[in-house]
Structure formats: C-alpha cells, structure tokens
C-alpha cells in the first residue's frame, strides 16, 4: 500500500535580479528611520570623530544627530536665511556653514553662538569646507567667486574669480593643504592651488556641476551634473575616464562607501545607485520616496543617511549580527517549534536500542481533500490560500492536478454567485501569466461552458466576464505585436549573418583516402 503522493507545486524560476554579494550587503539594512525637517535637506556631513554624529542642513537650521537618536542632540539656529553646507572639521570640533545671506559662520560644536563670522561674499554661499591643515576655510558662492579664509584672524586670504556661473560644489584635498576643487554651473571643474594665482586645471563636465568627490587616493575625481556622473584622472591632467548615465534626472549628490570600493550617486529621480569602482557597473539600487538632494554614509557603512526635497531625512542602519541571532532565538522559543523539535535532538547512547517509528507525513489541507476525492472542497481550499497570500502557484497546481484526474469540470461546476466571482477574480488575475496560461485557459473554457446558461442573471459575474474578455483581447493584441517584432528581428538577424556553405560530399573530396574510389556516391548504388 503506497502512501498518497501529494500534489507537486512546481518551482518557477525567479525572474529579475540575481542575488550577488553586493545585493546581500546592501540589503542588510534595517527599515529606514524617517525624520521630518523644516525644509529641503541640502547637506549632510558625518563627524570624523566617534560616535560619528552628523550635521543635517535644512532650511535655516543645522541639526546635529547622534548615531541612534531620532531627536537632534544640538541645533544651530543663528541663520538669518537658508543655511547651506554644514561641514565638520577633521578633528570634529568645529563646524562651518554658508548661508543665503552671503555670511559664512564658524561654530564650536559644543557652543551655540558663531565663533567667527566671515563676511565678503556678495551672494549666497553654497560651498564651505576646511582645508587639510585645519586653519583655513574654503567657500564658494553664487557671486562666481571662491575664497580662502584664515580662521584665527577671520580674514580673507585669496579670492578666485574664474568661474562664470554659480559655484555649487567644491572640495578640499585631504593630502595637500593648498589644493582644492570647485564645480560650477558654468559646466567646468577647476582645480586651484592656493600658492598660485590661477587655477591649475580645468575640466569640462558639459553640464552644470552639482557635486564633486575626490577619491581617498586623490588620483581620481568624480563629478556629477545633469544626468551624468563623470570620473576624471587628475594624475593624467584631468583626462576623462568614464562617463556614467544611469539616472534619468539630475544627479545631485555623490558618496563613497568607506572602503572606497563602491561609489554612490543620488539623484532627483529618487534613486540611489551604487557602482563598483573597478568596472563602474551598477551593482545595487535604492529607491526613495522623493527626489534626493543629499546623501552621506557613516564610516564603515554603518548607516546611510539621505535627505530629500520634501524635508524628510531617511536613516538606514546596518543590521548587526547579534540582532539576527536574536530573531532566530525568538523563533526557537515559540511553542509550536518546540513541539516539533521534541526528542529530535536526542543522541542515542551506545547501548540503546533504536526503535524507529514511522514518521507520519504531513499533508496540506487540499491534499487531504484530494486524497478523499473531495474535489470541489480541494479547489475551494486552494482558492482560499490564494486569497490569503496572493500566491497563485498552489492554486494553479491544484487545478492542474484536478485536470489530470479528469475532474476539473466537476470541481468548477455547481458554484453560487459569490464563489464564481471569486473564481473569476482569480482567473482575471492570473490567466495572462505565461507560467499559468495553459492550465487556466482550460479552466476558463470549462467555466464558460458550464455557466453560459446562466449568463445575465448576476451583474457581478457579468461584469467580471466582460473584464475577462477585455483582458484576453488585450493579451491577444499584445502577443500579435510581439510576434511582429520577433519577425522583424529574425529578418534583421538573418541578413546580418554571413552565409555559410556546407561542404557537399559530391563536389569536394577533402580526404585523399577516398581516392581509391568507393565509386561515386549516391543513388547509383541502390540495387534494383
């Protein structure tokens, strides 16, 4: 007496992305924490000192958040207009910020009032940064100038007026105290040396430059502007290396993951893309709710902070390995699992007699009903499963099994309005899925056969039948279009392939062995 063989649920190939180590790494973040700011978040900067607080510049304020706090640990509000570009110094003690009112303010992170105020720009300052020796400040402004300031004296050291449009981004070298780079809406990137009067290098991005980023080695420079992200080789005199076009709106912000292996770009199209820096291929992609203006990564990628135009700050923290274990531990505590495990992990001792007990195989509910030939109930159960978890695999597999048993028609028949409409709902949802079409088309035909006599009695069912008809018609048109395209492609391929002649046995005789002459090949040899 063989045991009942349960219905086989086929495993369909997963469409879409393949699982790579990158996706696993970047998926390993918790659900984002969202904090509402007063205006669009224009800049985020992490403190280089542990515990790596970060400054968020939005509207007329700069908030400093702790790594896990949702409330700001500190707030700087002494701005008369919109603040820009709050940046920490490399020792994490000072913070500099520009402002729409053209004044640059320097704060002590523990104080409240500005330590120094640098006045001189005539328009809003969007770019501020500290040089690597910590004594100077770089600023870039909408008055087309970029300037260097001395912190102790709060005086202007130099001013460069080479850009012909707003300067909206810039960065200082971390290795050389005199070198800094600015990007402007005049489509150019300029490298300046404070010891020289003029810029030392100019690169044409050919789009208004929104963000620049230096690699830790400072041999490569990344700029973003328009839909493009471009990488420049500074050691080869600013030669363009790669141009990436993976966003469909302006790329607003760039970041490097801490090991320098991955480059991140955020854009107004609400995506953050992650590139491999060896081949510049997109390895992962994050979606956000609104256009992204700013992006920053905590050291060691502990968290990803993204600021958006709608003023929402989204923080994703990396899952720690302990937490994962904790989750697993919680499951083990569940009583159901304990019941299953009971006695299973007992290791028999040396002298124990082992009496094996037949393991009772568990059958799913629909299988139990199939075993008893309760076909209609089995179909009901399968439909119920679909209603619960919206996965059509099991339902289709049960339908297929019923069809194989030759009883699908019986199972579909004799249903009331509610039952039938549920069935039709299922068909409308899945009949055009190519994986399920063969089975469901048969089922649909059967339903139409069975219930054609009662069409018109229920408005609900009629509406669904019309929907089904429209769906099928649309699908047929679609398939026809696809076939047309396929035909065109075939023609193209056929013309592009070189014609190859197959050696014909009669014409060429490549092998000398044949010379002895097994007569002429072919039909002559046939006997009468």
């Amino acid at each position, binding site marked *: 007496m063989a*045991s009942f063989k349960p219905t086989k649920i086929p495993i369909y190939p997963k469409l879409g992305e393949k699982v790579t180590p990158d996706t696993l790494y970047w998926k390993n973040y918790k659900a984002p924490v969202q904090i509402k700011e007063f205006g669009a978040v224009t800049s985020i900067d992490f403190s280089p000192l542990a515990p790596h607080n970060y400054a968020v510049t939005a509207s007329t304020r700069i908030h400093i958040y702790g790594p896990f706090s949702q409330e700001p640990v500190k707030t700087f509000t002494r701005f008369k207009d919109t603040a820009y570009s709050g940046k920490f110094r490399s020792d994490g003690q000072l913070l500099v910020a520009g402002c729409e009112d053209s004044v640059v303010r320097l704060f002590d992170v523990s104080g409240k009032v500005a330590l120094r105020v640098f006045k001189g720009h005539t328009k809003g300052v969007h770019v501020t940064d500290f040089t690597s020796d910590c004594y100077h400040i770089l600023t870039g402004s909408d008055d087309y100038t970029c300037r260097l300031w001395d912190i102790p004296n709060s005086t202007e050291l130099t001013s460069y007026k080479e850009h012909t449009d707003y300067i909206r981004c810039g960065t200082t070298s971390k290795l050389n105290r005199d070198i800094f780079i600015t990007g402007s809406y005049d489509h150019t990137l300029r490298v300046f040396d404070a010891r020289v009067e003029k810029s030392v290098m100019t690169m044409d991005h050919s789009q208004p430059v929104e963000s620049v980023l230096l690699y830790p080695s400072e041999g490569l420079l990344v700029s973003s502007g328009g839909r493009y992200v471009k990488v420049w080789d500074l050691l080869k005199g600013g030669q363009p290396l790669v141009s990436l076009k993976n966003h469909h709106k302006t790329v607003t912000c760039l970041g490097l993951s801490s090991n320098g292996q991955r480059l991140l770009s955020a854009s107004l199209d609400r995506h953050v893309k992650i590139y491999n820096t060896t081949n510049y291929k997109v390895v992962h992609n994050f979606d956000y709710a609104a256009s992204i203006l700013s992006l920053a990564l905590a050291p060691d990628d502990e968290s990803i902070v993204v600021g958006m135009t709608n003023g929402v700050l989204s923080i994703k923290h990396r899952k720690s390995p302990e937490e994962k274990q904790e989750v697993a531990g919680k499951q083990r505590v569940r009583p159901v699992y304990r019941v299953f495990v009971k006695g299973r992990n007992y290791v028999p001792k040396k002298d124990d007699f082992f009496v094996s007990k037949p393991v009772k195989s568990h059958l799913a509910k629909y299988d139990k009903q199939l075993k008893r030939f309760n076909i209609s109930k089995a179909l009901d159960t399968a439909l119920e499963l679909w209603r619960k978890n919206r996965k059509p695999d099991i339902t289709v597999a049960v339908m297929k099994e019923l069809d194989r048993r030759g009883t699908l028609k019986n199972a579909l028949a004799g249903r009331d309005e509610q039952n039938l409409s549920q069935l039709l709902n299922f068909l409308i949802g899945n009949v055009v899925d190519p994986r399920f079409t063969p089975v469901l088309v048969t089922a649909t035909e059967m339903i139409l056969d069975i219930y054609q006599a009662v069409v018109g009695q229920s408005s609900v069912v009629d509406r669904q039948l019309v929907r089904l008809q429209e769906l099928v018609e649309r699908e047929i048109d679609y398939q026809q279009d696809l076939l047309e395209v396929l035909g065109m492609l075939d023609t193209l391929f056929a013309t592009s392939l070189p014609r190859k002649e197959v*050696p014909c*046995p009669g014409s060429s005789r490549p092998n000398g062995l044949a010379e002895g002459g097994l007569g002429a090949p072919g*039909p002559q*040899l046939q006997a009468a």
Partner: protein
Amino acid sequence: MVEHAEIRMVRRGGSKINFREPVITNDSRFLLCAAGESVNVYSTSTEEFVHDLQGHTDLVTGVVLNPSNHLQVYSCSADGTVRLWDFMDGILIKTFIIGYPIYSIYVSEKHGGVVFVVVPMANYKSSELFQLVAVHLPRSGDQEVEARELSAVLCDVSPHPGAVSFGREGEYIAATKGLQLEVFFFKKQKSYRFSLKSGMKKGVKNAFTCVSCHPKEDCIATGHADGKIRLWRNFNQKKEYTYTTLHWHHGAVNTLCFTPEGTNLLSGGIESVLVHWHYTQENQKDFLPRLGAAITHIAVSPDGSLFCTSHSDNKITIIQSCVKVSAIIQGLVKGDGVWTDLIIDPRSKALVLNGKPGHLQFYSLHRDKQLYNLDIVQQEYINEEGLDQFEVVKAAFDARGDWLATVEERRKKGAELEINLKLWAYDKLTQSFVLNTTVTAPHEDRITGMFFSPSPETTMLVTTSLDDHFKAWLLADHSDTKEGFWSCDFVGGYHLLKPGCCSYSADGSLLAVGFQEVVTVWSPASWELLTTLSQPPGAIRDLCFGRLSCSKYLLGTSTKNQLCCWNLLTCSLEWSTPMDVSLLQADPLSENMAAFCSQSGSSDCECYLVSGSSYQYQHNYFASFGLDYVLHMAGSPWVFYNMCCSLVVRLTQPSRNRSNGLHSSICPLLPPVFVFKPSEPRPLYSQKALCTGKVQHAVFAPRDQMLESCEERTQWLNRSQLYFITQDMDLLTFSTKTEEDRLLASSKQLMVDDSVAVTPFYLLLGKHRRQQLEKQEALTNPMAERTQLPQGSIAIKELLHTPAHVLPSASFLCAMFVRSLLVSRSSAR
C-alpha cells in the same frame, strides 16, 4: 532455412505471474503461481523465489492444491496435461494426459479422484466454445497415464477461471457466462439457469465477470462488469430465487473471494482497492487502498490468515490479517507497451524500461528479478479508465551511469501536449537516482530522440523533437549553488525539417541528426554543421555509428526500405541495400550490429546480425548459410540474393583485402543478411520468423561473464547478449547451448534439500556450518561416519516430519523403520 542448432531464441525475464490465481499452501509458508511454462514456488515470508516446477511444455493455465494431500498440487496446461507435483521437493509425481488444451482446473474435496477442467468443445475446435468436464484420474502406478474417463458437466462455459466456482462442500458448481448464471447440483444432476436483463448503464453491460460460492452457506456471489456484486440465495429452484446487490466498485469487479469461514467477502477491480465486505452486514466494509495496479485475482490461505492479490502489473501482494501488506512479489512489469527503448543501466547492468505507470523499472537480467522501481512522474496515480496519464516516453543514461534523463508526456484530447524533461543524478549514499532538474516544456512538440554524449569528459544531452529543432543540454556549473543544474546550451535546426533520430559517434566527437531525408553531421564542440548526407527517397528512420574499428561508418535506415552505410572520411555512400530495417542496434562492446527487419505485408520478422570480420572461404560461407543465400560472383559488384525473403544486396566495392584470409581486419558491420563491410562482410547470424509481431525495441546487454565460444556463428554472443521486446511485450533473447548448460549446472548447485527459503546468506552460512561440523566430527570420532545415528537417516526424518494423517500404513512404516536401523553390509565393511 538452415537450422542453427547452437543458437536458439528463448523467453527471458518475467513470465506472467499474474496470469492465474495464486495458491497459498496449507501451512501458509509457500505461494504457488503459474508462471509461463512452469509453476513458481515463493516463500510468503521472505518473498524470495524458492524453486520452480518444470515439466509442462506450454502455458500453465491453473494451479490447485490436491484436496486429499496438502503437500501435492495439480497443475494444468495448454499442452493438454494435468500434472501432480510434490511442491516441497519439486518432484513431478504423475502426469495425466487429457488430450485437449486445458484452460482452467477446479477440484473439490467431495469429489476425490476427480478434477474438473475446462476444455474446448470437441466438435468445435476452432470456435470459442468451451465445456467443463470431470476427469476421473486413473489410479495406476505409472508416471504417465492417459485419462480417458471424461464426462461433460456443463456445456458452454467461459474459459476464464474465475467464472466457475464450487459451492458448499462441493454439492453444486456455479458457472457464469455473459448474462447467465448456471448452477449444477451433483446430487440431483440438475442445473438451473438464471439470467439478467442486459441493462445498459453508463455504457457498461451488467454481464457477469466472476463468481464465488460461500463455503458454509448456500450463497453465490457474482461480480459484474458495471461494478455491482450480487449475492444469490435460494437458487435451488427455478422461480423463487433472490439476490441482493452490493455496489461500491465503479469499474468492473475483476475477482471475488470468500474467506474460508465465509465471514468475509473480498472483491477487487481496476480501482486497485481491496474491498472487504462483512458477510451478513454488507453495509460494513473495509478498504485497503492504493495497492498499485488493478487487482486481477484474490486468493486466501486455507487458514484465512493470509490474503494475496495478483495485480495487472505482474505483481503478487501478500496481505497479512487483511490490513498489512507483508510482502510483494514483483515480476517484470509488462504494461500497455514500452515507449522507452530497452536500456542497460551502466552501473547495475540492469535492464531499464517502462514499469508501473509513471515509473521506470530496473530489472536484473542475470537474476531475473526486479531490482527497484523509480518513480518518475511523482504523482498520485488515479486508476480510472479513459484518463490521460503521464507516461515516461524516453529515458537515457550517460556513459558512467551518473545521470539519467527521462521525458514524460501527457497527451490530452484537443489540448496542449504536456512534456517534462527530468534529469536525475545518481546518489551514492542512497544508491538511487535523485531528481536534479525538471524542465517543463523542453520542446513545443513530442520528443523523438534523446541521447547522452558517450564521451566521459562532457555530460551533454541531445533531444530531438517534432518542433523542427534539436536541443543540447549541458550541466551548468554554478559556484554559488551547491550542485549544478542543467540548462539548454544549443538549439539547432535544418531548413525547418523535422528531426527524427540522432546518434553520437562512439567518442562523442560527432553528432548525426536525421532530418527527414537528410542526415546532418554536427560537431558538438563548436556546434558547426560539418556535412550533410542524403539518400532519397525515404525519411531516415534510425541512425547508428559504427563502433571501435568501424567508427568511420555511419549507418542509417530509411522508410523506403533502404539501409545505407556512409563512410565519414570520404563523406560518401559506401553501400546501400534495399531492406526494410525497422531497428538498428550496435553492440557497445564489439563491432557487431543487429538489424531487425519488418516486412511490410507480413507479420514475419527477421533479424540479421552482421559483422565485419572477413570470411575465409566462400564455400564455407555457402555451407553455413545453405540455400538461403546465393552469391553471384559475376565479377563486381557482388550480389547476394536471399531467396527466402527476396532481398538483394549488391556490394559495390569488391573487397580489396580479401586475401588477408581468416580474421584480417575486423570490419564493420553491415547490413543484414550478408556480411559485409565495405570489404568483406558476412552475416554472423540470421534468423527468420523470429516471432509474430514487430520487434519494437532491442538492446545488447553486456554479459557479466564472457563466454568462450570459438565457433564463429556464436562468437557474437560472447561479450553481450541481444535482448528484444515484441509488440506482445515478450522479452526474448538468443542463447547458446554452452550457456544453457552452464545455467543448468549452476541451478543444480543451488539446490538445497531443505525447503526453507533460500537466500544467498543462507547458502553461504549453511555451507560454512556444514563444513565445520563435518570437520569436527571427523576429528573427534572417526567412527562417526560409519555408525550413522538413527535420527540422521532419511526414513526417520520422513517418519517424524510428515504429518500422521498423510503417512502410509503403520505396517509399511514399521518394515522401513526396522530396515533403517540395520547396518548394511557395504557400510559395515
């Protein structure tokens, strides 16, 4: 036709053990069943084959226990004899010659010395009319007696053995045929007939299918084709009989059986459920479901403790106390047909073919035993007539037996064809195949051929299909997953022609695919079309590469009666012959090739075996083939005529190295009748009129032990044996005399005097023990051998071990006993 005395065709593997109702002996230790021309004895506890009772010369059609001696059994056969056997020792006691083919046999305790047999009616020999006759067995001491005393009991009975049954204590006998039940009372010498109206229900007639009588009461149970069971009572008169109807089966009731006490009625049918009705409380019934296949017979042991059911898949199930299946005796499953080719599993050397529905069976040819069933479809089998089931249609092993590929398909009326390609990996741990990859709808139409590449480096599978494509499948290595899975590597086609067959060369470097009339040769390494060969008219039916030294030849057969051989070095036709070859099969271990012909118009089949060894003298050649073939040596070309089947072969190429003599280069294999090769061919063996019906599949099975036959005509059987299966599902093979002698010797060696089930373990241990005992005895007491203890003598043993009621009279025994105690003169010396 020349007699080839040394080689004869024998049936192999799995005679039908479900042909007639099996018999369980009184002590429930053995089960006897008719199996082909012999009666097999199985042990009920270990399901092992114990021995067989051989002697009949035709199909055994019935086995019954001798009611007067429970250690004896009657068997009847279509050869017109009834034989009495001692089944414990396998000795033929008596043969009664009846003179007519016997279809079934019945005995009753009340009618001692009489057996009832069903024979054709004397005057209608050709027609389908049968009668039940009582045969009075003559009491005579001879081994062979002619039974002359026949008296007809009932005329016009069904030859089906289930259609006749003895009633309570043998007082009456009930027989059914068509819509009529006939009861014959022996005392009154009168018979009553009861007939049913031919009610049509669901298109099935309510005709009688089987009958069984209650052993204690006057009650007859009859089964009907519409699934009903009727219990007839009060039938000793014409008018006031009654019957009650039981209905559970939805198909025909195949068999019915009362338990010995009459408390239960067992019934079975196509549903493969054993239904267990409680007599007198008919609404109570128990079921034993999912027995595997339709039940054809049910038998109950005389003490009622064991049931056994025969099934349509050549299986006998032994059921203990009506709930537990305790043993399954499985023969070679012969389903509706074989769709897969006959295949040899490279690992176990077992023959693989379709078994139970949706299964592949692994059948050991050497041990004549089914090894195991592999469930391919993995779906619950629904026993219902007219249902389209999944069937395994193709199977293939790779060269080392690590991979098995199967194709299953289900054809629905008016709906899409469902095809699944499954690939199974051999698991060393469990010693069986584990499913690795399932490809749903690998092709859009039926798959016509499937082959693994024979080269050991790459495991590649090629499938050809009617959807105008052939596909190559490769095992993809995926480092991120633990084990690889199969994926499609290449899709090929040729001018939208339908590929019919394909073949790999022996080293796997070439692939030939037959596209209707054109043979395309591809290189599997680069998937380049190397050349095309064509020999119109007629689509290519089968393709086969030569092996070993003949690997440069490619053979093909076409539908328009052509057998062609191409030389692949020159890409030209080497020879061709008009022959209607339906099947080409190459021996993997030698150059030999077998070609099975089917002659259209006649059912006559022929097999030609061809080899390429050059022949010595033409005269010898003529001698060996006699009048069959006449060789015209009118210079070149040579023409061989086969007079009998009017085949003509013309050798276009007079052999160049004929002078090499005896066994110069062993060359190809060629065509059918004639040996041939491009140089000199000669058929090693040819056989005409193999069997009725077309040969469907054939395979060369390697022998486990090489034969050392030097005779030329049997040499081709040295390394491997040719098995083939016909439309009637007979598995046949060729065997030589030396081989049969060897088999006989080995079977004698295996004979054990004890009737305990023999297992290899028992043989091994038993032999060892005996030797030890003998050694000990010899050491301790050198006299022991001479003065044999009385317990050891055969007479004593017989006296003590045989039940008292079957022993001869005491006076007879006494003399024997005394004689056994005496020390004979010879041993005293």
